[in-house]
């Protein structure tokens, strides 16, 4: 019985870590711009698709990863420069629609640039399952956990120990004040998009050996990532990770003990309940309403 429970947990952790990586991207952009970027899932898709097709074309994996990270970053920068920046002072809803438009555009571009088939990458450290107390875990899942952890540490260091990171954080707290002390708000916004696109690409690369990827893979990842980020509390990187893990584990336990047909619904019910009692998510800052 314990082995089964452990297996459910592993299953949930694997999915959860994937959702968490997607959620982190939302958190970074939200932090510096208060924008929810619904094209975040597409960054992940671009990372996975670009790497998979380049590897299939014969490029060595590390080079393919580096190139697709670069490509994804360029897409992120372009999105900020040409779509978000000109509309910076618009309503929240307006910007949401822009990012939804961007996600549709990127999906359309991906299906033309690549194709509509599913692509995969070989697992980084083989496909021999690791046995733990009667349950099994794939080595690639460990890669996903490891990368998520490393990303969290790197982000913490970046935001708390580097000048530029601190400036980005400052902008999120008070845009005007940051501007007054000479922080280039535009530069910060640009950097946040580049960073989250980069992160998305990394996520896409480590996740593809498990889930495969195709031009529409970003829809699901975007949706789950958004759920993770909101559940954890917007703008809180650690919160997004916890949120992602909770969603993943809830789904796995629900399909193990309740009903696999309703596992997604159960995850959403949990999110709704959390929001009823904690309207700013698990770790979100309490917002004060300004008149």
């Amino acid at each position, binding site marked *: 019985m314990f082995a089964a429970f452990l297996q459910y947990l592993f299953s949930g952790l694997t999915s959860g870590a994937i959702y968490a990586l997607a959620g982190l991207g939302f958190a970074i952009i*939200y932090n510096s711009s208060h924008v*929810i970027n619904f094209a975040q899932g597409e960054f992940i898709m671009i990372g996975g698709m670009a790497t998979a097709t380049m590897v299939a074309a014969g490029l060595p994996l590390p080079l393919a990863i580096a190139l697709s990270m670069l490509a994804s970053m360029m897409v992120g920068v372009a999105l900020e420069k040409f*779509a978000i920046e*000109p*509309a910076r002072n*618009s*309503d*929240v*809803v*307006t*910007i*949401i*629609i*822009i990012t*939804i*438009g*961007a*996600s*549709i*555009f*990127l*999906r*359309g*571009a991906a*299906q*033309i640039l690549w194709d509509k088939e599913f692509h995969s990458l070989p697992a980084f450290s083989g496909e021999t399952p690791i046995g733990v107390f009667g349950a099994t875990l794939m080595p690639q899942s460990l890669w996903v956990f490891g990368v998520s952890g490393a990303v969290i540490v790197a982000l913490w260091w970046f935001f708390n120990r580097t000048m530029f990171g601190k400036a980005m954080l400052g902008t999120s707290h008070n845009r005007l004040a940051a501007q007054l002390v000479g922080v280039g708000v535009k530069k910060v916004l640009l950097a946040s998009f580049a960073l989250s696109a980069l992160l998305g690409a990394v996520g896409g690369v480590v996740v593809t050996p498990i889930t495969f990827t195709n031009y529409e893979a970003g829809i699901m990842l975007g*949706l789950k990532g*958004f*759920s993770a980020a*909101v*559940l954890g509390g*917007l703008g809180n990187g650690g919160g997004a990770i916890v949120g992602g893990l909770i969603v993943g584990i809830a789904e796995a336990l629900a399909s193990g003990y309740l009903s696999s*047909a*309703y596992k*997604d*619904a159960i995850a*959403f*019910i949990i*999110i*709704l309940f959390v*929001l*009823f009692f904690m*309207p*700013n*998510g698990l770790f979100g800052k309490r*917002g004060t*309403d*300004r*008149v």
Partner: protein
Amino acid sequence: MLAVVITVAPLGFSNSYYYDVAVNAMFNAIVCVGLNLLIGYAGQISLGHAGFFALGAYGSALLTASWGLPPIAAMLISATVVGLLAFVVGRPILKLKGHYLAMATLGIGIIIHIVLKTEAKITGGPDGMSVDNFSLLGFTVMGDRMWYWVVGILLILTVWLALNLIDSPVGRALRAVHGSEVGAEVVGVDTSSYKVLVFVVSAVFASMVGSLFAHKNGFITPDIGSFMHSVELVVMVVLGGMASVFGALIGAVILTLLPQFLAVVEQYEAMILGAIMMGTMIFLPKGLLPSIVSAFKRREGGQ
């Protein structure tokens, strides 16, 4: 003016396909006028209205098929149930703000979608179920032309209702909620009641149109309740122009027609649609109609 457009438009329709598209556009327009009350006037986003639309559609389909109820009764019962549901979930949900509210409404929409998909014994599952014609007092609405006139009249009625609501004290309270919720509360507006009220109204609009859509289309699948459909509805409202009844209407019409035009460019359809969405919101951030109107006003002022 709307009445004139609706009356004159069919002159350009050479076959019933055009009527079909026009009816779909008007269906969307009715939903969007309702949704716009919530998004545009009360300033509350909903990413779950397709769920209410689907509940209305399935409610009608099931009540007429298995219970043999007359369509009008089925439609009203479904709308009442949806209204009650919106009322029950509305209270806790509308306390949330911004993206949290978006998440919560999205969750509700998705849960409804999952239920419709899973309970295949009742709903036919992902492959959908068929629905009979709409008839009232022995009179059956059939064919695209007849539907066109019926829905046209309903649309005019909806717009008239919405315009009246906006000019009423309720409408003024709503705008106050949008402008500043705290401010509105300070001057004694019971903001949460008004928000719930308009949430319920917009959900009922969506449900009733869902019922009619089911009868008109003759076949429904759970996809009408999908997240993508909810997003589509919000995009229609925002693209056309928030806080403008005619803006929402124009947004609905344009976004219903656009895929029909873009069908000929095949694989570039998604790219062009995405580019149009981004372009409109970047250059006309207030939406099509309000931006054009203010441009006109400015020009007149300049002369």
